[in-house]
């Protein structure tokens, strides 16, 4: 699926560091990617790989002591890193929306659904309450909530987890954003609900041409949903490319390890492959390639300097001196 559109959102050499007393944690360290209108980008990695921080950095929502120390976030050509808080506020929830991981926590427990939706509309549109409420009701209907008019007057605790995530998605859709950043929105849900929500998100974004950045650790979700995928490890994108190419022929040993650790039917009974070791602490990253201590291919050169980004194939990037050999994998 080759796309030639102008990038809607381009993240360039983004660096978000956490300046703590224990030292500097480079949560995001030189991340570059772009999304085109209507495209779904999967951002994959283990916990602590910096994928969520990347999402928050785009909207300027990184909490203290985190700070964007370098790079640019270009949204329709405008650099958001340099933009003021007022400008960011105009864009948040309006042109760029976000959906969070835990639906039980994203809605304010003491405010009614309609309050939380109407305020989202009226933060960006000069419409009266009745019109805002009508939009809220339509958005609830669009994400498949039955009897949206009645549900508007309910409180979050009267919804199930799946329904709450639909409400959060409806809030994200309210102002017809150009980009939606979804931070593991289906991780906390049942698989059946997960499938429904994935399907609906795909459909809604396809209809409106909204770009979707789907942050997840679940390769199965990415394979069914995304057009392209970026694999993050310790704050860097170690491999990226079209989703089919990356998942079928992984080049980075880390990607190969992730794919190998997904349980599947045809390896029933066999011992599940796992990546040895743990994600390194961001305060004590090894020199050179951050993955080398866990990497079966690592050589002496890996310790000297972090591998630079290379382009092994058209449309793919890689940071590795010793790429995974497909023959060896099989």
């Amino acid at each position: 699926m080759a796309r030639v559109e102008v990038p809607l959102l381009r993240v360039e050499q983004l660096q978000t560091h956490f300046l703590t007393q224990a030292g500097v944690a480079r949560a995001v360290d030189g991340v570059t990617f772009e999304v085109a209108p209507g495209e779904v980008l999967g951002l994959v990695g283990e916990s602590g790989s910096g994928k969520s921080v990347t999402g928050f950095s785009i909207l300027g929502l990184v909490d203290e002591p985190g700070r964007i120390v370098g790079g640019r976030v270009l949204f329709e050509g405008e650099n958001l890193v340099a933009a003021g808080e007022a400008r960011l506020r105009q864009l948040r929830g309006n042109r760029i929306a976000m959906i969070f991981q835990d639906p039980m926590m994203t809605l304010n427990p003491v405010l009614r659904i309609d309050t939380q939706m109407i305020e989202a509309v009226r933060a960006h549109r000069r419409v009266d309450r009745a019109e805002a409420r009508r939009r809220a009701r339509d958005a609830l209907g669009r994400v498949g909530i039955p009897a949206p008019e009645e549900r508007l007057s309910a409180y979050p605790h009267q919804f199930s987890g799946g329904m709450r995530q639909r409400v959060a998605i409806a809030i994200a859709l309210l102002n017809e954003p150009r980009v939606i950043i979804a931070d593991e929105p289906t991780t906390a849900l049942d698989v059946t609900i997960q499938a429904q929500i994935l399907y609906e998100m795909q459909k809604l974004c396809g209809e409106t041409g909204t770009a979707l950045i789907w942050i997840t650790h679940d390769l199965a979700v990415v394979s069914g949903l995304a057009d392209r995928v970026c694999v993050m490890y310790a704050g860097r994108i170690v491999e990226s490319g079209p989703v089919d190419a990356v998942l079928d022929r992984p080049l980075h040993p880390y990607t190969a390890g992730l794919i190998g650790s997904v349980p599947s039917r045809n390896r029933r009974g066999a011992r599940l492959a796992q990546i040895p070791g743990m994600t390194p602490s961001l305060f004590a990253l090894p020199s050179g390639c951050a993955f080398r201590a866990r990497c079966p291919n690592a050589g002496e050169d890996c310790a000297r300097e972090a591998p630079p980004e290379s382009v092994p194939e058209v449309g793919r990037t890689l940071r590795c001196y010793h790429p995974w050999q497909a023959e060896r994998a099989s």
Partner: protein
Amino acid sequence: MLVYFIRRLGQAALVLVVMALLVFVGIYAIGNPVDVLISPEADLAEQQATIERLGLDKPLWEQLWLFLVNALGGDLGRSFVHGEPALQLILERLPATLELALVALVIAVTAGVFLGLWAGLKPDSLTGRSIMTGSILGFSLPNFWLGLMLILVFAVSLQWLPAGGRGDTVSLLGIRTSLFTLDGLSHLILPAVTLALYKTSLVIRLARAGTREVALQDYVKFARAKGLSSSRVIYVHVLKNIMIPVVTVIGLELGSMIAFAVVTETVFAWPGIGKLLIDSIVNLDRPVVVAYLMMTVFIFILINFAVDLLYSLLDPRVRLSEAKA
């Protein structure tokens, strides 16, 4: 809701009866009011007459029984000292104490919540830390000392505000209040601030702790991700969540402010019920003390009920569990 209300009413009645028993027997055990009330020069016949008039010749259980029967009819007995109905004595002085407590409450909640929010949102800033240090001071300063210092500065040195008394009052719905005259308000400021300081510190700490907890919640970040202004995030999303513990504690504290504003009232010569209580205890004026404590219990019950109602307004999850009960 009705079931809940009736159950609460039953509990309240039980508490009132137990309280009456305890206080009645307690005061009886402390001393004999006759020793205090009757002048030593009075002869035996006079003494006997007084004792009979006050009903003190009867055994304790009979006095108690009479008291309970009369109390059912709303008669809490006559003051041994003043000869007036005890309830009337208290009700005359109650508005002064109530208005003092309410003004102090308003000061404590507004100042406390605002400063607590500030300290919670910027915990490491100079302002945030100053607020917390100030609240420690507010906790530690004794009431009477603070009152005296305020009098010294604002009444004696600067002569901006009067040192004591209640000032002009107007009658509103048959209750005398100083809330609506300038003179009355100027008399009210110093005692109200004195009474409010401790509670303000308390509310600051609660509000700050709540804010620090709530500010980290996903729903606050989500509210910001919706593009809401920071004032909307703070004053709607955060504020409503931190008010639940604040209301709980303030409810409890309001009762104690009304019932035990004794020290502040004494320092500022405020004609409230605190002073009446002290005098009555000294004179072993049992009907007044009993009536006063019954009144206090009643106020506490009312406030607790109001707090429960406020809860259900603040937190929708409470409403449901209540309906099930």
